[in-house]
């Protein structure tokens, strides 16, 4: 679809959305009045900047369903967010909302090469979390066969993977790593003893190095998926180019803003992701500040798709750690650790303490069994190497603790790698 055509659809949908919400939603009506903007002021797509932002705290303040614009009779489902950063938020769906969500994901999975003939294991959690059911319906819509394994009982998942000739998996990157480890213990090589060739990974930040590791280790092509429960759930993925996540323009309007000033940033510049879901019925989202950090690319993708892309999420505005005044993202730590062959870079924990007025950050990372030496000096050298690499990449000194393999926590859902004791 030509870019101009997408923009026309976006404008038409935006205009309809704004009129509808101004007329029928007390929340949006008041918000727009406060901002002194009327639907008649929206006369181009660019005028979207006149509209007020929506924040996570708006959802919390209006818990559970005060922002809903559909009646209870029209609702067909609720999901509740995991509450990673605080109180959970409730999302309601009409049948049309579910259809649109499914359609968005079906298009995305098709872009990853998944379709009829594929067997897809959905190892995201089923239930209140949007990952499991979202991927489930999206994959079914593509014609693929779904194995709804959910999370946990990993040995059984690996058996099913072999018995049912699974070709694709959807889960968190840390859970896929856990599966690879457990399979190894069972004497099964994911690369040689399964038919897995595609993985759709998301729900937590992960690095390009992790992708390279997974692809090299398992022969699986690993695609990044993006979404959040407020938007419906997981909605968008990369295409065969693996270079940015396509955001379907007819479904969502994407902005990247400076989190300080709220100004739109040009393509290529990193900032906070803001999304407007253009056709939502039950739980509308206009200019929602998601808190994820990314940049936009509106050039036509080499795959031929004209829908804009967002870069892999590099962190969150709110899980960004500030250590002695310097911004540190857990994904940066992972990125640095993955470059050190002696340690297992995807198994780490960050612990932050405050001694007096000074922040102290400790990174615990597992050593690889093959780099174990009984000479203290060799081990100290690994420790020093990790410290230097982290210092160079984060610009802040961190303490390093080398841990034994398999001694740090494993995560089946979202990895929680930071223990910040400063607020306790």
């Amino acid at each position, binding site marked *: 679809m030509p870019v101009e055509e997408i923009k026309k659809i976006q404008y038409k949908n935006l205009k309809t959305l704004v009129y509808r919400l101004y007329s029928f939603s007390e929340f949006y009506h008041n918000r727009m009045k406060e901002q002194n903007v009327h639907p008649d002021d929206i006369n181009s797509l660019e005028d979207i900047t006149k509209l007020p932002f929506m924040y996570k705290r708006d959802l919390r303040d209006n818990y559970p369903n005060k922002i809903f614009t559909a009646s209870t009779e029209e609702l067909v489902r609720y999901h509740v967010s995991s509450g990673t950063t605080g109180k959970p938020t409730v999302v309601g769906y009409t049948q049309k909302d579910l259809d649109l969500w499914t359609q968005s994901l079906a298009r995305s999975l098709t872009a990853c090469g998944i379709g009829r003939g594929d067997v897809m294991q959905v190892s995201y959690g089923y239930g209140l979390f949007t990952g499991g059911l979202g991927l489930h319906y999206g994959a079914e819509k593509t014609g693929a066969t779904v194995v709804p394994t959910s999370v946990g009982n990993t040995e059984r998942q690996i058996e099913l993977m072999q018995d049912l000739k699974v070709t694709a998996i959807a889960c968190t990157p840390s859970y896929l790593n856990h599966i690879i480890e457990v399979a190894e213990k069972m004497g099964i090589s994911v690369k040689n003893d399964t038919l897995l060739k595609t993985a759709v990974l998301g729900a937590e930040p992960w690095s390009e190095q992790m992708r390279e590791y997974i692809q090299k280790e398992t022969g699986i092509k690993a695609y990044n998926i993006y979404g959040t429960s407020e938007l419906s759930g997981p909605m968008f993925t990369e295409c065969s180019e693996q270079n940015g996540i396509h955001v379907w323009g007819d479904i969502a309007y994407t902005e990247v803003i400076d989190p300080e000033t709220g100004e739109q940033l040009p393509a290529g510049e990193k900032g906070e992701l803001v999304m407007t879901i253009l056709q939502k019925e039950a739980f509308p989202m206009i200019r929602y500040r998601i808190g994820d950090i990314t940049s936009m690319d509106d050039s036509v993708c080499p795959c031929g798709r004209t829908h804009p892309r967002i870069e892999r999420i590099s962190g969150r505005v709110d899980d960004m750690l500030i250590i002695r005044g310097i911004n540190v993202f857990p994904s940066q730590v992972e990125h640095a650790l993955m470059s050190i062959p002696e340690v297992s870079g995807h198994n780490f924990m960050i612990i932050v303490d405050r001694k007096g007025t000074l922040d102290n950050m400790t990174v615990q990372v597992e050593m690889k069994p093959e780099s*174990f030496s009984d000479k203290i000096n060799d081990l100290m050298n690994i420790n020093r190497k990790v410290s230097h690499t982290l210092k160079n990449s984060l610009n802040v000194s961190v303490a390093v*603790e080398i841990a034994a393999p398999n001694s740090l926590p494993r995560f089946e859902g979202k990895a929680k790698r930071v223990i910040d004791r400063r607020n306790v």
Partner: protein
Amino acid sequence: MDTEDYIIKQISVFSENKPGRLASIAKALEEEKINIFAFSIAEAKGFGVVRVLVDRPEPALKKLADIGFMVSFTDVIAVNMKDEPGGLYETARILGGAGINIEYAYAYSGKDAAVLILRVDQVKEAIKGIRENGGELLKAEMFK
């Protein structure tokens, strides 16, 4: 006699510096009815390496690995020293003279003699040097 006969398999265990780690190593060995001949702990910031000579190294290593410890075998030698003044000097002099570096050492005083366990940079040369100079080494078969 072959120098191989004197190369002893020491078990080296990585241990985070946390209470109870040594207890779980010792408990595991007790459960397998494995006897410890000699033992040392080397410590650094945050972690340590526990080194043990036992009567049955293979099952000991397997047991420790099975319960999740990072373990490996290290080649060491055991010198039977005269348990009298000058005993250590004699051994150290031989190794120094042969240009062999000691990476680390620990000792125990047994019933019949004092034993010095050595990790050296050139194991075979050390064995040859000590034997040619009248030193006495314990055979690896004692630790099997």
